[in-house]
């Protein structure tokens, strides 16, 4: 199952977390992907320059074929993974297979990604 959207998120950043929320990572100046066990922040294409296409789904559906930029685990106690913005608007959500899900993130550019793929499992 894959869901995707094209948005220009505020502050050019989105958060991948459980539906009930997580502990956002401590922001570090210059870092583009940061993570805590319950929340991952992902930098997108600069909001005033254009939208970012974000895809959320199972790994086979979203894998672009190159090494992921992030590979780790996310706590998903409600078994629903959401992608939200700074103003806490949920833009994407998919069911998670377990209470702790393996999660991989691909971006097509290290600094200005126009495509962000988030794979579960």
């Amino acid at each position, binding site marked *: 199952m894959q869901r995707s959207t094209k948005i220009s998120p505020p502050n*050019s950043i989105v958060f991948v977390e459980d539906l009930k929320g997580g502990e956002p990572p401590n922001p570090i100046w210059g870092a583009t992907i940061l993570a805590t066990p319950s929340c991952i922040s992902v930098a997108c294409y600069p909001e005033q320059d254009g939208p970012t296409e974000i895809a959320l789904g199972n790994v086979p559906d979203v894998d672009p074929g190159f090494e992921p930029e992030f590979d780790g685990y996310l706590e998903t106690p409600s078994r629903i993974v959401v992608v939200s913005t700074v103003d806490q608007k949920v833009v994407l959500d998919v069911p998670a297979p377990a209470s702790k899900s393996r999660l991989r993130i691909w971006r097509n550019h290290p600094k200005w990604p126009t495509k962000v793929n988030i794979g579960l499992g």
Partner: protein
Amino acid sequence: MHRSDDAFAAAQRRRFTRENAHLHVRHDARLFMQPAAYRLWKQEREAKAAEHEPESVGTDELKAMLQLKAEVAALRAEITFRKLIAALKAYNPSQPRVPAGNSDGGQWTNDLGAGRNDSRILSDASPEVPPRPGDVYAQLRPRSGPILINGRWVQPTPSQAARLAAAEAQSRDAIQRVRELDPNWRPQPSTYESVEGLIRAHRAEAREAEARLRELANAGIGPGEFAKEWIPARGPNRSFNKYERDAGLRIFRLWGCHTCGSFQAGTPSGFPVLDHQYPTALISPGTAQRLYPQCLSCSLRQGGSVQQLKRSPVICSAPPKSRRRIR
């Protein structure tokens, strides 16, 4: 004109034989007199003056008179001083007054129940509405009564009361400004045993709140230390028109990122991010905002800080000094 007639001579005779005839003699009369006649006239005049001269005052009498005058002056000064002391004792700034709204409102009263202890005059601040910077409440007036410190009442001096009121107002204002952005923030509790200690505690709280505001500004919450110029935001929406983008670019080229001072926007177009301040996620709808140009890295970091602030009171550290003010 010849004046040799008898009438004139008679008139002159009468004139110079009067009691005050000497007053009719001109001051330079001696120039018109024979020396012998002048000496005679002078002797007569001095003899007449000696007859009218008062008796001379002795030195002892003069001393006694001066002493008497001094005593009278001292008595007058003492009376004035006693009157002043009595007036000062009569005035007590702590004396309660009748509250406004009564027929004799504002008058001094001895009834404590209607005066200082009246809840109606403790403060005019509403407990529901938080105080705003610049507001003046009854509580901000210098305390005139004692203050409860560690279970005992301490009477501050007028100077201490004034300084305490100023420190309280400063502290309250700074804490309020922080809580508008970070409602969970609290200053470190402090202990004190005197009025001076209480003043120091308030000042420490104000400093702590100011430090927190700077910390938030470094994280992109609030105008940063390089914020010099801004443009008004049309609203919280992020669809900027050409004027706003051009104005943002001009300000950015002039002053750099408002948070870190960098002149590198970090975006593919070279345009800086137009940052709403205060952040839309932290303010109530309808609040006026300003747009400040910001670099992409600070914008990303600000996003993380806002998210953290909304969920937990912990916030990130300041941006690295080495990355500041990059041209």
